[in-house]
């Protein structure tokens, strides 16, 4: 007998869509409520608030007009910065379940699958119903929100385009998440497992991103995160597996482009394309899964053992690895050897996760040990992944880019006492400033420094966790490579103190470095641009002179300082302390847009600068007159010469004339200038307090400074050592601190 196909009375697609839509009413109701709240009430409230805030906060005294401010607000609420994507994702997940979870019950499966429809037509109808209902609903409410914004004078043609684009992006996001959810539904045999798998599908990539960043920061000694400073367009790259991440990244890049006055959609298309490709590929898989799904696949677990095993490993490997990481965190052993407890915990967690997955999939306790050998695979995978980070198997800490791949580079201290401003007087993060403004071209020298610095940084990290390994002193710094492909590669390094100063001078002594590190031209230009009259302070620690200056005079200072900067290099900065610091602060500190504050250190060899200071009555001797000092309070921490561990703190007050004179000429205002090597005098930190005899003088009555312990006479050191205020070596050492009494003052 041969089979044939005859025609049957056609079921109208419109009829199917009407009936399917009725089944989605329970989703429509909360969705409409959410949309009403966002697009209608939200738009009204946000724009009304913007109108009110404009007057209250800025009193109309902004660069933006009221209309521009309202338009900016509309763009933030309905445009690419809109938070409506959250609603989109929720509706997509609910729609996926609403449309296809009928496959989990025999009754409903029999009902739908016995109907006179091909599987293909049934799938397309159910699938399209969810997408069309969303598209229509979101379009309608976006339009209403837009009309509300138009009514409140918050829309331009550009914003209209942005809102339309955002709607399209939300549609693509919906389809991608909807497809992902349906795929999870179709590969599972019950709703609980499907919810679990949907969570894995949607959350795996964001979790992987977070986990990767955490592991790098935990185990890579040279890791230094500058992503938050660089701007989305320079950092974010399209992700393969996460439409949600791509959506967020795309919106961030859009905002970054606009902030930098670039073509707004530039680069955003990559994320949208990635979302679209993901949606199409998953859509194909969804179709395949539906067509081939067996109606009897109901009950526990997933439709194919291979899927279960992949999911099991996907969850077990990172979770087991985090078990080992938790041990390292608790034992502060990030850079130590792999602890046996880490491996024990890792295997234990891998076993628990694998067994739990089996139990969930099989729906019975006894199934826990089914496919037990996957525990070994999961544990091995987790150990390998753990070692990739723990033992730096990828060579992250050793990686130095090829010179040919680098456009330019930068080197700077992690923390700078210098404040940096943009041309509008807004504060700039110094790291961000160096990253984007410093363009050093001697890449060959830089990579040489980086190799030594990365090796030392890794060594010191290991030394901190390993008994008997001694730290290497050096200068901490950040080295950043601006790659030719537009990306940044950044490493945190410790340049060892015995590193060749001549090599360092090639970088620190270069005009490319000095121009950006001190930013003299930038400062002078900004002051002149805003005609920012201000006050110049010259601070030498024990006293400060100040004078009101015009922008022109500040320009003269700039010329003098630039001339002196030619002497600045690593050899100078690492061996000498400045004699004082110059600070210039604009007077109009209350005006938001034009407040500047610049600091420049002055070395003894900066003759042009010192001449300028003298010419403007700002100059002060670098050392106080011992006659002005009534007493000096020295407190210091004594370190073990071998281990660098703190032994004890001691403190004593000296008011004998010969004692004061012996140390006064060695007092320095601070010991933390850039590139000045610390601890060169082997572990003594000193501060002073000075009481002025002549209270009529307008210098501070006391100030803090430092003194190298090598400059403290032995007899004074002996006195200090007799007055221990805190002993780190004894348990409950703080008891010693309680003995700090008047006895510490030497009469």
């Amino acid at each position, binding site marked *: *007998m*041969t089979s044939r196909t005859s025609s049957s*009375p*056609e079921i109208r697609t419109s009829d199917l869509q009407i009936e399917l839509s*009725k089944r989605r009413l329970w989703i429509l109701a909360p969705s409409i409520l959410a949309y009403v709240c966002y697009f209608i009430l939200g738009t009204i409230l946000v724009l009304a608030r913007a109108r009110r805030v404009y007057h209250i906060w800025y009193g109309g005294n902004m660069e933006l007009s009221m209309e521009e401010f309202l338009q900016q607000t509309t763009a933030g609420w309905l445009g690419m910065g809109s938070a409506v994507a959250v609603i989109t994702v929720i509706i997509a997940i609910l729609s996926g379940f609403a449309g296809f979870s009928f496959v989990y*019950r025999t009754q409903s499966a029999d009902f739908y699958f*016995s109907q006179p*429809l091909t599987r293909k037509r049934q799938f397309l109808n159910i699938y399209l119903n969810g997408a069309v209902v969303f598209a229509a609903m979101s379009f309608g409410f976006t339009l209403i929100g837009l009309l509300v914004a138009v009514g409140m004078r918050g829309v331009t043609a550009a914003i209209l385009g942005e809102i339309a684009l955002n709607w399209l992006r939300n549609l693509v996001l919906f389809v991608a998440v909807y497809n992902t959810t349906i795929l999870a539904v179709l590969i599972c045999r019950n709703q609980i497992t499907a919810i679990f798998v949907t969570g894995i599908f949607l959350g795996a990539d964001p979790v992987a991103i977070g986990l990767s960043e955490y592991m790098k920061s935990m185990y890579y000694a040279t890791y230094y995160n500058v992503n938050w400073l660089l701007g989305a367009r320079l950092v974010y790259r399209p992700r393969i597996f996460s439409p949600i991440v791509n959506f967020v990244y795309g919106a961030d890049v859009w905002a970054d482009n606009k902030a930098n006055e670039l073509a707004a959609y530039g680069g955003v298309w990559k994320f949208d394309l990635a979302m679209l490709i993901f949606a199409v590929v998953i859509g194909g898989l969804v179709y395949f899964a539906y067509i081939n799904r067996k*109606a009897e696949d109901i009950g526990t677990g997933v439709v194919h053992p291979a899927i279960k095993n992949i999911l099991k490993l996907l969850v077990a490997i990172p979770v087991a690895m985090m078990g080992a990481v938790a041990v390292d965190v608790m034992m502060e052993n990030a850079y130590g050897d792999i602890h046996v407890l880490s491996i024990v915990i890792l295997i234990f967690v891998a076993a628990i996760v694998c067994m739990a997955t089996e139990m969930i999939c099989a729906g019975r306790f006894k199934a826990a040990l089914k496919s037990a050998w996957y525990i070994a695979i999961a544990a091995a995978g987790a150990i390998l992944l753990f070692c990739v980070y723990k033992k730096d198997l990828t060579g992250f800490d050793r990686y130095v880019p090829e010179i040919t791949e680098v456009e330019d580079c930068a080197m700077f201290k992690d923390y700078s006492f210098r404040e940096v401003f943009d041309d509008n007087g807004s504060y700039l993060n110094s790291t961000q400033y160096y990253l984007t403004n410093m363009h050093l071209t001697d890449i060959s020298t830089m990579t040489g420094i980086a190799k030594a610095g990365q090796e030392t940084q890794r060594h010191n990290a290991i030394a901190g966790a390993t008994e008997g390994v001694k730290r290497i002193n050096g200068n901490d710094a950040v080295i950043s490579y601006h790659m030719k492909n537009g990306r940044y590669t950044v490493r945190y390094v410790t340049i060892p103190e015995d590193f060749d100063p001549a090599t360092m001078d090639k970088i620190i002594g270069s005009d490319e470095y000095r121009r950006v590190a001190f930013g003299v031209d930038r400062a002078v230009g900004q002051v002149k641009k805003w005609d920012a009259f201000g006050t110049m302070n010259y601070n030498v620690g024990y006293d400060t002179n100040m004078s009101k200056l015009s922008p022109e005079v500040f320009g003269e200072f700039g010329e003098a300082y630039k001339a002196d900067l030619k002497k600045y290099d690593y050899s100078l900065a690492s061996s000498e302390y400045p004699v004082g610091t110059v600070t210039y602060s604009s007077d109009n500190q209350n005006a938001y847009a034009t407040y500047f504050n610049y600091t420049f250190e002055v070395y003894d060899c900066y003759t042009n600068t010192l001449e300028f200071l003298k010419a403007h009555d700002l100059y002060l001797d670098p050392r106080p007159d011992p006659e002005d000092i009534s007493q000096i309070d020295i407190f210091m921490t004594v370190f073990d010469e071998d281990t660098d561990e703190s032994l004890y703190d001691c403190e004593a007050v000296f008011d004998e004339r010969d004692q004061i004179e012996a140390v006064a000429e060695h007092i320095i205002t601070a010991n933390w200038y850039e590139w000045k090597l610390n601890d060169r005098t082997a572990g003594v930190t000193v501060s002073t307090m000075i009481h002025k005899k002549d209270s009529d003088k307008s210098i501070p009555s006391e100030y803090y400074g430092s003194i190298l312990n090598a400059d403290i006479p032995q007899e004074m050191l002996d006195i200090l050592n007799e007055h221990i205020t805190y002993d780190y070596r004894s348990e409950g050492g703080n008891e010693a601190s309680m003995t700090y009494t008047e006895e510490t003052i030497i009469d």
Partner: protein
Amino acid sequence: MIEIINISKSYDDYPAVKSLNLQMNEREVFGMVGTNGAGKTTLLRMMAGVLKPDEGRIVIDGESVWDNPAAKSKLFFITDDAYYFMNATPEDMREYYRRIYPTFDTERFGNLISNFGLDTKRRISGFSKGMRKQLSVIMGICSGCKYLFCDETFDGLDPVMRQATKSLFAKDMEDRGLTPILTSHNLRELEDICDHVGLLHEGGILLSRDINDMKLNINKLQVVFETEDDRTELESGLEVIIHKEQGRLHTYTVRNNRETVESILGGIGTVFAELLPLTLEEIFISETEVVGYDIKNIILS
């Protein structure tokens, strides 16, 4: 006509239906009986196009049923526990079926629902099991489909409704050539209504025959022989399915018609002989006992 050609179906490693061949004619009530787990529901689900056979195919009026709307539009599947939409009323379901089955008879639906005493505006979730069954039968009847697959449909219906359903089936068979395919454990029920019976056991078909033929061709014989030779002669002349012996009384279940048995009995010496017709239930027990589905095995194992 429905042709089931060499179909097999397994659930994971469990074979539910094994190389089964069956034929169901139009305008006949086909009853499927079988032991628990024999594969009746699996077979119905395959016939309805819900399950895809691992092997073989099912052809309805010359068309393969799997993923074929033309074939599936001729059948309506009344499941044991029918599915209704959440919060749906009979009216809602009528609307749905009206769109899915273009031959759906809305007017008849109104009449029947009224005759059965069901409220069209009441939520089905508030219906009793019997009322839900009634509604699914009404939907099936009104769908206008040629083939009505009924899985345990009479279970849960009260005697009056059972009778009413049978009458509806009879009327539609007469009026428009309806062909109901029924499964049930209630063999008395099937005996009343079925023209043809298929007996399933462990995924295979033990027998499939016209019910009258079946009843005529299987008989129970109680006999006391005069001599042992008489016994031998009788047993060699009949197709004995089951033989039990109690003292001198022998009880045989034989797969022979009445005439054959009487003819053999006439040629041998008997002290006592009585030929009894079997009910469908007795036939079911006899046939399944032959293949090892015996109450003694279940109790004594």
